[in-house]
């Protein structure tokens, strides 16, 4: 039972990080039918940007205000990078064959990854201890303050995003643009602005995810975007790519699955089992768990 509860807590923590990052993949895919392979590398870049803001701008302060400022500045930086990325790597290829955009996305991924290596070096860096190491022991199940913060903040962000997309006029414009761009234009929706907005939101959430990864795992490397990006991408597919609640659900499920495999089988096998899970889900439900609610009549 102890293992179960412990892995449940761990799984929810890593699951919320996967979910935050998965949202960036799924939102961009939803509107542009494009896998933004650079997203994972932006998540990694965010951790490094956070590190630099901490040492260079905040003078290594760890007060609550300083930590909030680090999160906001990192999210803002990644939002700017996201907009630039869309402008130079994706917008010029809007009418081009799908494969060209995929190649461009892979190129952008390498550019960002190598950019991180040039600026911060190829070696692992240690992410600052922004949150005090507080642990609670519930009869053998240990939960840290970091885990609580990651889980709560992720949930708040995800619920806010969900309400924004489902309940506001701009959210409706996002959904309309992801269903049919031309029809959305006929409604008077500026689809270019919506795409920019998607990149802002997705990159900012990914940035928060990157800082969480730094806080939780401590060691950050220039190429870690591939690993976490791949997990988040799988989470987005499991939930139904293009579907926002699906990415949240997929992230959580994948996090829990990973933690339980690590707890009951072996952490070495966690990756292999993750792909087995992905294959099984794609066989049973090719569109993911929440993908495609109804078939559209033509």
């Amino acid at each position, binding site marked *: 039972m102890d293992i179960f509860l412990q892995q449940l807590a761990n799984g929810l923590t890593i699951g919320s990080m996967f979910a935050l990052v998965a949202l960036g993949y799924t939102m961009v895919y939803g509107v542009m039918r494009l896998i933004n392979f650079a997203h994972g590398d932006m998540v990694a870049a965010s951790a490094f940007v956070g590190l630099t803001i901490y040492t260079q701008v905040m003078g290594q302060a760890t007060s609550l205000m300083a930590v909030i400022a680090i999160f906001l500045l990192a999210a803002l930086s990644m939002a700017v990078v996201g907009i630039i990325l869309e402008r130079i790597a994706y917008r010029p290829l809007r009418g081009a064959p799908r494969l060209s955009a995929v190649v461009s996305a892979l190129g952008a991924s390498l550019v960002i990854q190598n950019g991180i290596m040039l600026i911060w070096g190829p070696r692992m860096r240690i992410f600052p201890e922004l949150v005090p190491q507080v642990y609670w022991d519930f009869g053998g199940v240990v939960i840290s303050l970091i885990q609580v913060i990651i889980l709560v903040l992720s949930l708040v962000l995800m619920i806010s995003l969900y309400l924004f997309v489902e309940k506001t006029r701009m959210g*409706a414009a996002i959904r309309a643009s992801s269903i049919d761009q031309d029809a959305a234009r006929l409604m008077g*929706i500026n689809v270019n602005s919506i795409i920019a907005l998607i990149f802002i939101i997705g990159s900012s959430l990914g940035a928060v995810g990157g800082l969480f990864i730094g806080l939780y795992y401590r060691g950050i490397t220039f190429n870690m975007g591939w690993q976490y990006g791949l997990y988040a991408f799988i989470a987005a597919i499991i939930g139904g790519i293009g579907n926002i609640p699906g990415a949240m659900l997929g992230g959580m499920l994948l996090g829990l699955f990973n933690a339980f495999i690590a707890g009951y089988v072996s952490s070495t096998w966690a990756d292999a089992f993750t792909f087995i899970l992905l294959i099984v889900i794609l066989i049973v439900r090719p569109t993911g768990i929440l993908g*495609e609610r109804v078939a559209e009549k033509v």
Partner: protein
Amino acid sequence: MSDILFEIKDLEVSYGSIAAIKGISLEVHKGEIVTILGANGAGKTTTMRTISQLLKAKSGSIRFKGQELTQLPAHKIVKLGISHSPEGRRVFGILTVEENLLLGAYTQTKMDREVLDWVFRLFPRLEERRKQLAGTLSGGEQQMLAIGRALMSKPEMLLLDEPSLGIAPILVKAIFKQIKEIAESGVTVLLVEQNAKAALKLADRGYVLDVGKIALSGTSAELLASEKVQEAYLGKKH
């Protein structure tokens, strides 16, 4: 004749090197129902999409109330007072009927309750199914939704592209009756149709489009009487 609301002059549109519209001119007066007839591939939908700026003209001009449209982005057109119910309906299938209608009012700073009520009076079926996903409606109901959605922006001119396409004849009749009512409320209508008979019964005037050129134009009575139209589109032999 009353004043010109909308005017196309020497419009040319091409897909790559293939010319789809080869220099057409037409005009629509305020309060009229004007129809564009033609066979498949004549360029009807291309014309409509170019008016809405989903396609860009190669040359020529499109003016609405004196303003040139060809340099504007597509999303700015509806705000000017032109609303487009596209070919194939293009409703947002995984959104509810109500959400679709609200999106139609996207450019309105505040959704006008009266317009929504009016749309529901025109098409009571939409009110019954307001919470239903648009993709689950029948073809005819989706067409009603597409027209209703286009009305939500309070247009001065309504572009209707093939509202009869793939719809049961009984529903076509009902929809055409409501189009007449929409026109009588003061909305100018530009109607593209393959169903020439139904369209000419409804319209004041018409243009016949043939492989990217206007082959014929005139009042509905003139077109109905013309041998060419009868042979080509109404299936009568002389």
